[in-house]
């Protein structure tokens, strides 16, 4: 038998929390922002957008976690290059902004808060049914030590089916 306090039961009913040992999602994908010297992915301190991903944008995003070089040294960028994953020391300078297709902000998260290595292995649980990856972006407050061989990689845990309003509640 599992005892649950009324306030936690209320949170569970509203979808505000879940057991951290639960299965996170059905599917998983790493999305990458490459850092280039020029062009769309130019490394700078302004907004740097994720590549558009219509498939992922139609899914239900259940969790996010920033990938560090201690987990994986390099990933293939959307442009086909093999880029070095950032080290965790850069994360305090990075903020992630998740938007919908109208570019309305759904969520702002510090990258460090989304890094499992700093949070006892726990990912950020999310409930984003209308996230648009191509409208979402990161901002880096200081690019010292980050160069064009690096990239920002985000682990995305998702379900294929977006829940109906009744299922969410």
């Amino acid at each position: 038998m599992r005892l649950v306090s009324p306030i936690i039961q209320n949170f569970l009913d509203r979808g505000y929390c879940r057991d951290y040992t639960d299965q996170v999602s059905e599917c998983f994908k790493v999305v990458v922002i490459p850092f280039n010297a020029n062009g769309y992915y130019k490394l700078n301190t302004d907004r740097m957008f994720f590549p558009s991903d219509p498939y992922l944008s139609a899914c239900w995003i259940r969790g996010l976690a920033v990938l560090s070089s201690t987990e994986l040294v390099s990933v293939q960028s959307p442009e086909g290059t093999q880029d070095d994953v950032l080290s965790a020391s850069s994360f305090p300078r990075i903020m992630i902004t998740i938007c919908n297709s109208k570019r309305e902000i759904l969520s702002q998260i510090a990258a460090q808060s989304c890094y499992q290595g700093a949070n006892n292995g726990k990912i950020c649980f999310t409930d984003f049914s209308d996230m648009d990856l191509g409208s979402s972006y990161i901002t880096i407050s200081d690019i010292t030590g980050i160069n064009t061989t690096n990239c920002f990689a985000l682990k995305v845990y998702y379900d294929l089916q977006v829940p109906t309003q009744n299922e969410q509640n």
Partner: protein
Amino acid sequence: MNNLIIKKSQIVEAQFQTAIVLNQKYNFTEIPNLSANNLIIYGIECYTATQLAKTPSGNTTIAVADAVNVIVTFRNTKKEEFVYQMPVYSLIRANNGGFVTMFKPQLVNLTDCYVQVVAAGTLATNQSVAFNLYYDVI
């Protein structure tokens, strides 16, 4: 153990706009996104420079060592202090095994909320204490 699910979130800050004075109230900066009266806050996380070096408005956040020098009070729209003088250290996710602090969902008037300094430490004018507020639309 349950951990928070992010439905929506917004980073907010309380800036030390004057010289550091112990126990003075430094109010939060108003955020238009959060000024609607149909938003309930159900989780709060504090960011020091170890989590986020600069706030979205470009202000420097306090050093992690100064977290023990600052307390925060959140008031709801009924002017009740549902979080009163809580150490911001306790709201840092990394200090709680990765769990985000959750509260009974509240309608919050952000500009009524404030931080106070209990010891100067290395705190300086214009630094900010940043928080991520997790909220839902009702």
